[in-house]
């Protein structure tokens, strides 16, 4: 095995082009587990922790540019004002030790269906900025996850950042697990209201081969809010609307039975989380 340690982003891209099978490593919270358990032995490890620009985030042009190396601890502590959904999700990751090392970029690289960052990124219509020596691509989050632990990266590409326009309305994140800490989601759900464009964003985690949006639920709710004039009046949501929304969220899921939970339980949990997330978000919208 060889340990590649680029000091700059340009050097990292050149190394990835020269060694397309190199496994990128940031906080190591996924990659090192695989190595420690001898599940694989990559020929090359590409350590990105020396690439300083990845560990930055910045607002600009109405968007947040969140470098792939920013840790969950920093997202939790610094981005709650813009991206409360992602900050809440970051808060539920592992433990302090894990959040100090784990990154949103790493979550995207691993592309686990249970990754906590995915649902809020989907709900906020985030884009993933990926780059290679050939150039840069912006991939919408809902096109980024292509299969169980698979993503849309080409072998020579690296994840540089996440670009998110902070939703103009409330954002929520819910996660079901067997305890509060150190838990991989049994199911997760995130919701963002986008009143400026009269739209709704959703993200489902741990209830399908990939994280995914509940598109029919989003469309139904946005149209119901528009038809009822509720974006303007901010009046109470009819219970039937909330129920139908939750129902459509569960229909977008494709869960399996596994060690963490049954498919049936996941569907039930999603229905409850969708209802609660919407109630919380709507109450917040009414207050603001």
């Amino acid at each position, binding site marked *: *095995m*060889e*340990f590649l*340690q680029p000091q700059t982003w340009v050097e990292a891209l050149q190394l990835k082009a020269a060694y397309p099978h190199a496994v990128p*490593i940031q*906080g*190591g*919270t996924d*990659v*090192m*587990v695989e*190595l*420690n*358990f001898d599940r694989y*032995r*990559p020929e090359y*490890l590409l*350590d990105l*922790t020396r690439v300083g620009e990845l560990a930055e985030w910045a607002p600009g042009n109405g968007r947040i540019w969140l470098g792939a190396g920013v840790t969950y601890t920093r997202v939790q502590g610094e981005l709650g004002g813009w991206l409360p959904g992602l900050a809440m999700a970051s808060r539920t990751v*592992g*433990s*302090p*030790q*894990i959040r*100090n*090392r784990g990154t949103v970029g790493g979550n995207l690289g691993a592309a686990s269906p249970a990754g906590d960052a995915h649902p809020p990124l989907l709900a906020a219509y985030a884009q993933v900025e990926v780059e290679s020596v050939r150039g840069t691509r912006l991939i919408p989050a809902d096109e980024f996850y292509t299969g169980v632990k698979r993503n849309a990266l080409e072998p020579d590409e690296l994840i540089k950042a996440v670009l998110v326009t902070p939703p103009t309305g409330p954002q929520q994140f819910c996660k079901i697990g067997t305890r*509060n*800490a*150190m838990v991989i989601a049994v199911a997760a759900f995130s919701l963002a209201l986008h009143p400026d464009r009269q739209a709704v964003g959703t993200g489902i985690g741990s209830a399908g081969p990939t994280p995914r949006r509940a598109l029919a639920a989003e469309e139904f709710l946005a149209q119901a809010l528009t038809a009822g004039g509720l974006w303007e009046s901010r009046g109470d949501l009819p219970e039937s609307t909330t129920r139908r929304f939750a129902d459509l969220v569960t229909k977008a899921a494709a869960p399996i039975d596994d060690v963490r939970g049954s498919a049936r339980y996941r569907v039930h949990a999603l229905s409850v989380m969708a209802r609660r997330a919407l109630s919380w978000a709507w109450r917040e919208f009414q207050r603001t």
Partner: protein
Amino acid sequence: MRITCTINGQQQQADDVWEGESLLYVLRERLGFPGSKNACEQGECGSCTVYLDGVLACACLVAAGQAQGRDVRTIEGLAPGGELSAVQRAFLEAGAVQCGFCTPGLLVAAHDLIERQPEPSDAEIREALAGNLCRCTGYEKIMEAVRLAAARRSGAGGLPDDGTDHPHQVITRPDHPGIQRGGQQRGPAGRHT
């Protein structure tokens, strides 16, 4: 490959390090710092918790090469010269140690908490220690120990817990009267809830 880094304030060097091994392995097997414990090797148990550049991390999840040139502080570094830090003394006195395997990691995590938040609430203590598993104590004695260490630190005017500030309080003998055989511990000096 060769790894050079600072451990507990001293420059250390390890040779013939395999590129895929963890900082924990380097510490324990190559450099003679066995205080950090190897249990789960997947970041679940926190027994290998160390400071990496002042930030709490599981050493089992840090690739050895990632520690190159970095500053590492292990449990051994909490007791320079063998003099226990306040958090270690509190663990002894509160009976927060049973089999002891999780203790180094809990101590580093508790130390980090008290440095960041000198007067932690119970909820903050629980959260700070959420990544450290103990299968013996049931955590109550650990909670008491952290409360005790925090209360003493506040009482000492909030001086950093580097094990050297209050030599008159230092307990270096494991047979200190606060610790008795058979699990009969003296109660904590103060409980702050």
